[in-house]
């Protein structure tokens, strides 16, 4: 080996460089026997929502649907992609604002409340009934 003399060094010429020193412990041992059985926790969205593109949440104000177990402040899950049927609970436009009612097709088309305090709203033959979706679940918090 040939060594070439380059001159003396002193600390002033070479600033100190911090060199990281890796000293992580490596864990060796048996993996947990439960590892194979890890599952995702239960997700309510998965249970309640079938069609994410068409599903909205709305909040209820008032007691007009109380007999259908929809209380004041409940959050409704509304799916717009479901075709409303006789007796579906729907969100429909009444006088320019959306309301939650039960849709009855027979004997006459009407939007009924689930509270004897409120009379049903009949839809005339030439009136347009705008339904913004079918209520598929109600979340009441206590």
């Amino acid at each position: 080996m040939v060594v070439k003399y380059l001159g003396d060094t002193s600390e002033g010429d070479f600033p100190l460089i911090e060199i990281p020193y890796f000293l992580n412990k490596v864990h060796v041992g048996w993996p947990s026997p439960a590892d194979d059985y890890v599952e995702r926790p239960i997700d309510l969205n998965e249970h309640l929502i079938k069609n994410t593109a068409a599903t909205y949440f709305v909040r209820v104000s008032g007691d007009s649907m109380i007999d259908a177990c929809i209380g004041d402040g409940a959050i409704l899950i509304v799916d717009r992609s479901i075709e409303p049927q006789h007796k579906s609970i729907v969100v429909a436009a009444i006088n320019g604002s959306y309301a939650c009612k039960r849709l009855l097709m027979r004997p006459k088309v009407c939007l009924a409340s689930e509270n004897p305090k409120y009379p049903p709203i009949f839809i005339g033959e030439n009136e347009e009934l705008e339904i913004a979706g079918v209520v598929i679940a109600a979340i009441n918090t206590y």
Partner: protein
Amino acid sequence: MTYALVDCNSFYASCERVFRPDLKDTPIVVLSNNDGCVVALSKEAKNIGIKMCEPWFKIKNSFANKGGVAFSSNYELYADISARVMQTLEHLAPRIEIYSIDEAFLDLSGVDFCTDLDQFGHECQEKVKRWTGMPVRVGIGPTKTLAKAASYGAKKYTATQGVVDLSKQERQRKLMSIMPVEEIWGVGSRLKAHLNRMGITTALDLADTDTKLIRRRFSIVLERTVMELKGYPCIGLEEHPSTKKEIVVSRTFGKKVTTLESINEAVSDYAARASEKLRREKQYCKVVSVFARTNPFRLQDQQYSNILSCKLSSPTNDTRDILHATKMLSRRVYKKGYNFIKAGVMLSDFYDKDVYQSDFFIPNSRRPKSERLMKTIDKINATGESKITFAAQGIKKPWSMQRHFQSPKYTTNWNDLLVVK
């Protein structure tokens, strides 16, 4: 090949209608940031003479007298409804390209020989309307450029009921003969003058021009457009959006800003937003830039505009690191005595989590537990805007945007849900 272009009708204005059945036939305008001018309008607003880009203060009184309703832009709502429309379209076609917030191309190969295309268009309209509340029009053609032209026809002529199928050549030629050349996708007003001088005024004139001549006089890009008008597909579907190369967050201030403290606060606020977006992209950035400028429309003001960047020692997506950099930069970008109107933050030079080769001579500067902390902050903030903020972002934010007429964020904020009786 068969392509469909699905395009939302007056997208922003239609979004404002989804939760407001009372606005069905009302003229609607959507205003730009700080409620400056009209950026979107409904058909009804167009019919009473409102135009795009009109300053709000000019039309304010007459618009209200005619029963119109104005909204500040509500991008949270628009982005959510856009995502729902795109998701619905994915149920209708095997491959889609999201072209913009309110348009998507659908690849109908496979669909075209088992369904009537005109009928498919109407089904598509019906499904999107029912699932999302959004009215759309559908243009169908053998190339993307012709599908775009079909969509133009569907918008222009109400007799089409919003669906135009240009799969047959005679229909293509009929529409193109009454379509001004500048309306073609990729032509625009800049090329119009040049083409008109060559005697090309309609789309059909351009379609019948020799492609070699176009290539010689213009570019290969316009040649491709002509090929597509002739019915030869040249532009394919781009399904996967390329990963972002930079993230910019910038806003116009609600009022002019003159102090370093306010600039600092605003820039820190944008930096926090940008970092959040960066983490959503699962990227780490190495270059941070800050820019600020005065209002070029205030001729009486001294003008100034500047952008400064810095390179970090290792890639990060920790808000604290980015704030540290933007703070240093905004101090240097700021100049005393100017009226600032806009500032912004840009993040660039992105790395994936494990790709970055760390420098042996620079100690790992990643903060301990950074990832978990950021994840926790993002999770908390996801439940409602800005629950946890950094002190640098300010509290009162007097510089922030004015949005006086914003509708509720019906689909992205628990506190803004639609209330039904």
